[in-house]
């Protein structure tokens, strides 16, 4: 059966070149980078080269990069680390309503511990408005955290403008750039970031490794205590194969980014237009055009439920995702779609396709051939569609 992977915002395959390089650091150059012998030194050398590669893609200095176990840990380190280091200065935090749970649940944890929290609303396209940021800043605000682009609807946030406002105010600014890094330019100077999170497995690197950019001069407390690795910011023997793979993935991303973004954007537009033209009662979630990630398609198909769509697509080998309540363990629809003001019924029929390097026009054509039939079948068994047809 044909298999079409359209869930690249969830994770990506590891690039063959990356995997080959990693293998060397599992089996041959396996030294502990903290050891002084030649085994340790060769691992250290490769580790520091990876740090330079990651820093290079961000426009940062290598010493500003701390490797972590992934995006989740980097988000936690940024928020918990900064809150602990600055709590004497103030205890107010600001985040957007559409952050990843790695950010949202971390600030909610701090709120329980006595910090004050402001959650910024977003407009109907899923974008934070600058007025809201300005309004919410307080003298005791120590941290503002806004993601670069949203993982569900692909909305790109005005982080450079927010960064300017936050810096002027004197608070620290954290950006979760997991979904943009390697796809569109991410430059810590332009974005006025003090802290910035990235993750390898979204850019054809391995799972379980990420990094936090920490601007020189910004102090954060560590979460991990121990051997003092990563300049005491993150104790624990470095995951050298993964980190080196991450470096390689960055190098490949630099080479391919511009061309790949253009290519994928065309596929995205074909898919999005195709869906809207071939299926009635479809709503596009998130912004159109350049404010949208080049690889993101998110639509709500009315009168059908997301999990049913996913199961039907999966039977044809097509992998996608949904913000439907039925697909979440908590049975709540996506907090992102709700924050954008979508009613529950519309969030229920949401469907996300995220394109990547190996996708082709044939893949898009395959989806466009089958999706309308799936929707037709599910609408035939939908009491909501009946009701709609009777009352229209």
């Amino acid at each position, binding site marked *: 059966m044909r298999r079409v992977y359209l869930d690249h915002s969830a994770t990506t395959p590891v690039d063959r070149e990356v995997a080959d390089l990693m293998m060397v650091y599992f089996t041959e150059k396996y030294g502990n980078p903290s050891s002084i012998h030649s085994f340790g030194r060769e691992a250290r050398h490769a580790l520091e080269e990876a740090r330079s590669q990651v820093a290079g893609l961000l426009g940062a200095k290598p010493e500003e990069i701390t490797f972590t176990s992934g995006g989740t840990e980097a988000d936690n380190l940024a928020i918990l680390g900064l809150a602990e280091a600055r709590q004497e200065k103030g205890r107010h935090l600001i985040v957007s309503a559409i952050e990843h749970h790695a950010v949202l649940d971390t600030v909610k944890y701090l709120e329980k511990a006595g910090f004050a929290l402001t959650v910024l609303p977003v407009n109907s396209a899923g974008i934070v408005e600058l007025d809201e940021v300005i309004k919410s800043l307080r003298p005791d605000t120590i941290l503002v955290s806004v993601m670069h682009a949203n993982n569900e609807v692909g909305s790109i946030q005005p982080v450079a403008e927010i960064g300017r406002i936050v810096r002027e105010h004197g608070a620290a600014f954290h950006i979760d750039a997991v979904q943009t890094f390697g796809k569109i330019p991410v430059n810590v100077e332009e974005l006025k970031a003090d802290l910035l999170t990235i993750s390898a497995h979204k850019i054809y690197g391995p799972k379980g490794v990420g990094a936090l950019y920490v601007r020189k001069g910004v102090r954060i407390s560590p979460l991990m205590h121990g051997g003092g690795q990563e300049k005491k910011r993150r104790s624990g023997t470095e995951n050298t194969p993964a980190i080196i793979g991450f470096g390689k993935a960055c190098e490949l991303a630099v080479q391919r980014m511009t061309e790949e973004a253009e290519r994928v954007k065309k596929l995205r537009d074909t898919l999005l237009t195709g869906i809207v033209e071939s299926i009635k009662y479809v709503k596009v979630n998130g912004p159109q055009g350049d404010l949208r990630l080049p690889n993101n398609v998110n639509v709500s198909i009315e009168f059908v439920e997301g999990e*049913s769509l996913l199961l039907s697509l999966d039977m044809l080998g097509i992998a996608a995702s949904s913000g439907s309540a039925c697909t979440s363990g908590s*049975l709540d629809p996506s907090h992102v779609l709700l924050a954008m003001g979508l009613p529950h019924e519309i969030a229920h029929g949401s469907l996300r396709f995220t394109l990547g390097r190996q996708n082709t026009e044939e893949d898009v054509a395959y989806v466009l051939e089958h999706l309308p039939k799936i929707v037709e079948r599910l609408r035939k*068994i*939908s009491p909501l569609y009946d009701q709609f047809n009777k009352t229209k």
Partner: protein
Amino acid sequence: MYSQKVMEHFTNPRNVGEIPDADGIGEVGNTQCGDVMRIYLDIENDIIKDIKFKTFGCGAAVATSSMVTEMVKGKTIAEALEISNQAVAEALGGLPPQKMHCSNLAADAVHAAIKDYLDKRNKG
């Protein structure tokens, strides 16, 4: 995640549709996640002659609807009232724990349709 039986019922649901002038109609909604199930009954001499359903919900919701229609077709209304949500889930080879609430819809919708039938009959 789902058993083969669930997937089979999801892919080829039995008794989908409506019955015009049905003797009983039951609609239940799941306040937890917003799903809707509607059951239509054709009843003769207290026996369920025909049953149809329409469901908006996840794979488990569709499969349990389909399963329950098979289980009660040809049964007396007394027998149909005996069928529990648990029994429907078991007939499907079990459901993942987070999907047990979906099976509640199925038997509840049948019971609601029977109640509708009895109410109408008593009135009229």
